[in-house]
């Protein structure tokens, strides 16, 4: 393990995503999402590590498309992209609809790494809209996840629980986001379907995690740090005598 600062991580991740074909705007978002989760003790780096083998594949996939829309709901197909490069835009639409209709539902299908929605919903909360998100994962054993934030708040709360639910094609790689400009949304996972304890992190705990990261920085495995930087080298240009003349 090694110690890094948050800005170092953000800069390295930006280069990494830029080198992987993410658009300007998206690569900043993607880096911000990972750093935000890690900074708040929500395993951003672990989630990122799990997507690393698929990182470069996203650029060959179709862009998100709307498959249904009315005034209060929208269904978006993300074509198996990582949420890192599609979820911010989906939450933007939810925010828009909530402002127009009071409450809105966005369903994103075929989307991976949905944990990163936590950063996007936190941005909505900061801007005065309450958001709740729900998703499931796992085939043999289904785990449920939910996250939410109150309007005007700075930190979300988050829960996950292993369940006795059976696998559903419909739910796999699907994410439901409910957004409201009128009421605060505070979902809680049902104890009746949970196997064992529901793991919850309150907004207060998340705030404490953040303070610790601000004061101490972040720990990262040396291998992962090397890999992020190795991929990021894709944006660097080889040096020669001519290019040195273009340096200040």
């Amino acid at each position: 393990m090694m110690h890094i600062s948050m800005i170092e991580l953000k800069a390295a991740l930006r280069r990494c995503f830029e080198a992987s074909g993410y658009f300007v705007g998206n690569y900043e978002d993607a880096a911000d999402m990972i750093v935000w989760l890690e900074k708040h003790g929500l395993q951003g780096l672990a989630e990122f590590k799990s997507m690393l083998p698929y990182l470069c594949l996203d650029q060959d996939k179709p862009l998100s498309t709307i498959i249904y829309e009315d005034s209060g709901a929208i269904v978006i197909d993300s074509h198996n992209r990582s949420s890192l490069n599609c979820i911010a835009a989906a939450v933007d639409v939810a925010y828009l609809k909530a402002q127009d209709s009071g409450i809105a539902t966005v369903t994103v299908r075929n989307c991976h790494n949905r944990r990163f929605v936590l950063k996007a919903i936190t941005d909505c909360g900061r801007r005065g809209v309450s958001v709740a998100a729900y998703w499931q994962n796992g085939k043999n054993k289904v785990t449920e996840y939910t996250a939410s934030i109150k309007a005007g708040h700075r930190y979300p709360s988050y829960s996950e629980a292993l369940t006795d639910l059976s696998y559903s094609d419909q739910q796999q790689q699907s994410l439901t986001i409910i957004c409201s400009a009128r009421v605060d949304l505070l979902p809680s996972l049902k104890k009746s379907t949970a196997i064992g304890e529901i793991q919850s992190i309150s907004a207060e705990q998340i705030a404490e995690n953040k303070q610790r990261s601000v004061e101490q920085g972040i720990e990262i495995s040396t291998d992962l740090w090397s890999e992020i930087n190795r991929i990021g080298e894709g944006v660097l240009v080889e040096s020669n005598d001519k290019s040195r003349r273009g340096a200040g």
Partner: protein
Amino acid sequence: MTLPASIISALHGPRALPLRAIEQVMDVERLGAMHQSRLSFMRTLMRRIMRECWQIEIDKLALDEQGYGTVIYRIKTPNRVYSFVIFSEYLADEDRNDRVIASKWDLTMALVDGVIDDTYLQMLRENVPKQEAGRVDSRVFVLSRANRSMRNFDYIVDKLASGEQPEISKLSAVGYLYRTTAVYGSGKLGMADWEKVSSCFVDFNRPFSAEMFVCLMLRNFSLLQVEHIAKHRSADSFRGMQVEIKRFIGIGNSTGLGMAPYLINHPLLINRWVEMRELALARIRLLGVVSQGLRQQLLILLERAKIYTRQTVTEDARQTDNNQKLLVDLSALAKNIQQGFNDWDSLLGWSEQHCSLQGQEMLVSLMLELYPELVDDLENYLVVDELMDLDPLMPLKKVQQIIQQRYAWALSYDFDCPQALQHFWYRSQEKMEPRLGLVNSEPGEDRQMPLGIAYEVRKCFDLVTSHLQQDPQQSTAHFVLAQPQLRGILRRVQSMNKSMYGDIQVNLLDENVLPMHLLRCKLAFFGVGKFDPKSKLWVRNTMFQGAPLLEEIGQPFNDDWFMPLAPSSSQVAES
């Protein structure tokens, strides 16, 4: 940082003060003609140190006769204790290189939270001299390195050792003993993030305050070190340096292209710096009483600016021309003022008609000097939360209008003309150094940094216009869903529209681009002087020349150390 209502209403709305026009202020040539001011970061830092009477003492002095070794300063502020650590090592002349790609330096240094014990010092000793190749932790919040001035260092040691004072003319040509070649802060190499510095190390919660402090400490160490070496060389004949001469020695700085991407990538921060400077000027235009005493004071400052400019040495033809024009402007301004003026608006208007941009901006800086009561409180608002949120609710029609109104300058470029896209900016494999390349003749265009804001705005505008023809009611949210490649530029356009001054108005891809304007702009905010461009891509300059010495903390301070003049022989003799 949220601005207080009084500042917001002075910038926006019906009670806004008479601010200069956006297209005038944000023109890159004018920004490149700026000079230091009361709001420059070195000035605000020095005021804080003097007003709060920081206690800065040597905690450990372990230098050999040649001046190599370790020195630790302990800094006590009203809030906290910090340590400034310097490692001085032998460097062969042939290894001395100011470029960012260098790997050895005469001095390396770190600013650290708290008092340092031996274990921690050992960790610093193993890492700080390596700079980019080392790692530190979040107790450290600035890392820097410096190289000796070949022209001055040995010369001054020789003089002091033989009991003489250095020739002032030598110091007028090069007013420093060391040049910093990089000053790293804000989370680089494992250091504390800005979020920690601004919230925990509140003595350094203004932009680049800690970095400026390290340069100030380096300046003071350089004075200590030359005397230390000279004394050991010849204890009998040694005489210390005269205080007037010491004050005239600053710290040299080499600044390259890295600053240009910083300005483009932090538009909200740069806007805030410009806003505060322009607000200070607007306050003076509206509220500044013009008395006979102030006219006299201004004439004195103009004369000082003239001498200072004459004493500025540069071999660069363009800078020489600028300095000559400035000298003509300063004489013309003095003549005009002597004929009498009753309000600042008329004088500013006159300068805009008759002076170069250099002269106009020098007048602005000098006006700020005359009214500390209208200016100095603005130093508290130079920080900003750099949040660039996309506004998904904004109708696309509104985006189009914003671009037409706020980015007319960007739309004015003809990007069908190849000259408008002649350059590209990229990061080199050598330490990720930012470089400027020529399209079609150098590799790397496919990996260029997105610094061509004007071009990005043009492409965005064209797509927005085309979408609006199909769906005039479309929102930003739906547009971005369909056009994710525009997310970055849309977010920028929307965010900058909320700011007073917006983006710097320049096409950085143009064949005639002069990055020097951007470098000069940022360095003026830092507060440097004696600009000496070495090419269109890098510039030497001097920091903290004229600033009080450490031993003068706690003594009377009139905050009048900017644009220092070479001490006269009578001043030196008196001292």
